[in-house]
């Protein structure tokens, strides 16, 4: 009995959301085939990005709102690859290769900044995302076409500086998804994309078995003890962010090849928020995240995303209510998780303070 209770209380968040999702599916009253198609598409699109959040959580740096930087690295690589007309799956692989050094650079910078803001990593990484977004816009909206010569009608309108608002990614659209698809009813299941996601999941699992992975875990559990044990905590923290940023860059490339068009100035804005909300809905917290939680969360979050507008239409007579509701859920779940984390952290801190006094 107590075991059941423990499982229930440990998984309270995903269970609650599963119930909300079921209600949503019931009220949305959409055909099963439609739901399946949408969910498969969205899982293929987003899982990689959500998985990229796990490593920094384990390394004790909280939710990395700075995966926006990785997404930017991916987008810069895609812009360049479109310019050089790289095509096909080879072109996409080359794009991912090109994104990697950029992501390593951004990740290193981010990691160094975060080491100066210990205990404030999350808000710092979030503001860093906003800041990087500003710099990115400055470069691609102003410098390109004025200071940086760049003439390509696919990317620019010659009369004004800056890139087009939307860039068509025709040469890489669906190249990963379409290598091998299995048709089930209306749903095309992109087997290779899911294999890539599975490979990443296995890689993350294997990584935490290595010496470096164990070091990350040690740093995450207690920075002080880890450094006494001879682990270079600061270096490990930077590495954790670099890994996360590189994975996010690849994740964004997978995301965009699925969508097929790049919204130059806002494809990346919500990357952090939505990936983090998905991870948390899966039952993760600021200090604990597993692969299962990431995948479960992505699934639940996107079920909610798909059914919200129709459910809103049925219940409130307005699809817009549903659309606002899902945004509210995304922000709300993050707010609640952060508050619960801080709340627990505070009572732990109090307990240790009392211990100090009694000792």
């Amino acid at each position: 009995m107590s075991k059941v209770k423990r499982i229930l209380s440990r998984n309270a968040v995903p269970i609650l959301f599963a119930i909300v999702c079921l209600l949503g599916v019931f009220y949305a009253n959409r055909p099963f085939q439609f739901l399946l198609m949408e969910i498969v598409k969205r899982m293929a699109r987003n899982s990689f990005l959500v998985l990229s959040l796990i490593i920094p959580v384990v390394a004790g740096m909280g939710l990395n709102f700075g995966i926006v930087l990785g997404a930017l690295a991916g987008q810069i690589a895609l812009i360049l690859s479109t310019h050089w007309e790289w095509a096909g799956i080879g072109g996409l692989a080359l794009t991912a290769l090109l994104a990697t050094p950029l992501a390593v650079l951004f990740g290193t910078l981010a990691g160094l900044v975060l080491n100066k803001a210990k205990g404030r990593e999350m808000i710092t990484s979030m503001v860093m995302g906003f800041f990087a977004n500003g710099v990115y816009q400055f470069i691609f909206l102003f410098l390109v076409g004025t200071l940086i010569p760049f003439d390509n009608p696919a990317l620019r309108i010659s009369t004004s500086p800056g890139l087009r608002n939307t860039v068509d990614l025709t040469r890489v659209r669906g190249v990963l998804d379409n290598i091998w698809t299995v048709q089930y009813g209306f749903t095309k299941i992109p087997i290779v994309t899911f294999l890539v996601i599975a490979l990443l999941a296995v890689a993350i699992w294997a990584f935490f078995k290595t010496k470096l992975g164990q070091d990350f875990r040690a740093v995450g559990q207690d920075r002080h003890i880890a450094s006494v044990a001879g682990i270079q905590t600061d270096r490990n923290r930077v590495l954790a962010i670099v890994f996360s940023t590189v994975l996010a860059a690849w994740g964004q490339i997978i995301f965009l090849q699925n969508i097929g068009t790049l919204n130059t100035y806002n494809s990346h804005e919500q990357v952090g928020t939505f990936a983090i909300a998905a991870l948390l809905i899966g039952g993760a917290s600021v200090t604990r995240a597993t692969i299962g939680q990431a995948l479960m969360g992505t699934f639940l979050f996107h079920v909610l995303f798909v059914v919200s507008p129709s459910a809103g239409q049925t219940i409130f007579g307005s699809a817009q209510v549903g659309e606002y509701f899902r945004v509210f859920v995304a922000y709300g779940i993050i707010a609640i998780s952060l508050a619960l984390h801080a709340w627990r952290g505070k009572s732990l801190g109090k307990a240790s303070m009392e211990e100090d006094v009694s000792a």
Partner: protein
Amino acid sequence: MKDRVSKVYHGFGLPRLIISAFLLTLIIVAAGTELSVPGLLSDALVRIGQNGIYVLAMVPSIQAGAGLNFGLPLGVIAGMVGVLVSMENSLLGLGGFAVALLVAIPLGVVAGYLYSLLLNRVAGQEMMVGTYVGFSIVAGMCIFWLMAPFKNPALIWPVGGQGLRVTLTLADTFGGTLNNFLNVKLFGLTIPTGLLLFYALLAFLLWLFLRSKPGVAMEVVGRNPRFAVASGLNINAYRSVGITLSTVLAAVGYVVYAQSFGFAQLYNGPLMTAFPAVAAVLIGGASTREAKVRHAVIGVVLFQTLLTVAMPVTNQLIEGNISEIARVIVSNGMILYALTRVTGGEQA
């Protein structure tokens, strides 16, 4: 003389000297183009008064030890409801403005007090929790705006009879009441006297409060909680005072902002209101641990003048509208700088 220069230098701080020098350069450049310098400065004055109260709102929250108040949208929404109630009843001029305030302030007190109860439980993580509480409330209120029982046809969508419009104009009700009050023209400069007087009054009242007994106690709580406990101060009560005051200022700030801007933008409009205000108070010389009314005033003057003057001047030099991006880079860069500067603190 040298002592005095060095005193001014240390009191004012190097970053502010650099920004002032940059501003001066911009104004000189502007004078060389066909831009009207008095026109630019008039715009800057309006924007200072328009945004000043949001920046003032940062001061009590920092002083009470709750850090920068990223939960500002909470107060803004209280202000929004005030403005809407006043507009629903088609109240005009100063009366409309006063009613908006009368509705907004109690709502701000309630919202701010509840918010402070939450923040007291998450001490140390106020900024992050505040940001997302603010975001959630804005998103949740989007649903409210769609279903709210407002009936005035000027406010709701013409079709369906329900749901507030995205942008409402205040031109026919109380838009510009403060701005046009005792409005004077000097050397081509238009001075929104009423707006600036109202701002100065609030700044003065806040200054007075921070010097009063509860104000000083609040500062002690923020600066050194253990010492505060030892002196018999109730930490949570004083933190609540600071956070509530901050939220109420945000509510008043919105009413003033809306009447000056002339429009009320609902739905996702208030989502990012906290960020420019946070940046301004930091530019003014505050840190996540210490803020004075002086910092808020200097900050808003420098930041808003910079944005108002920089935009048209750079537009003369390069094509395109750079103001929005400049704001994003400057404000977030400033916040980033402040977050990485404090060492050994446990705030997030």
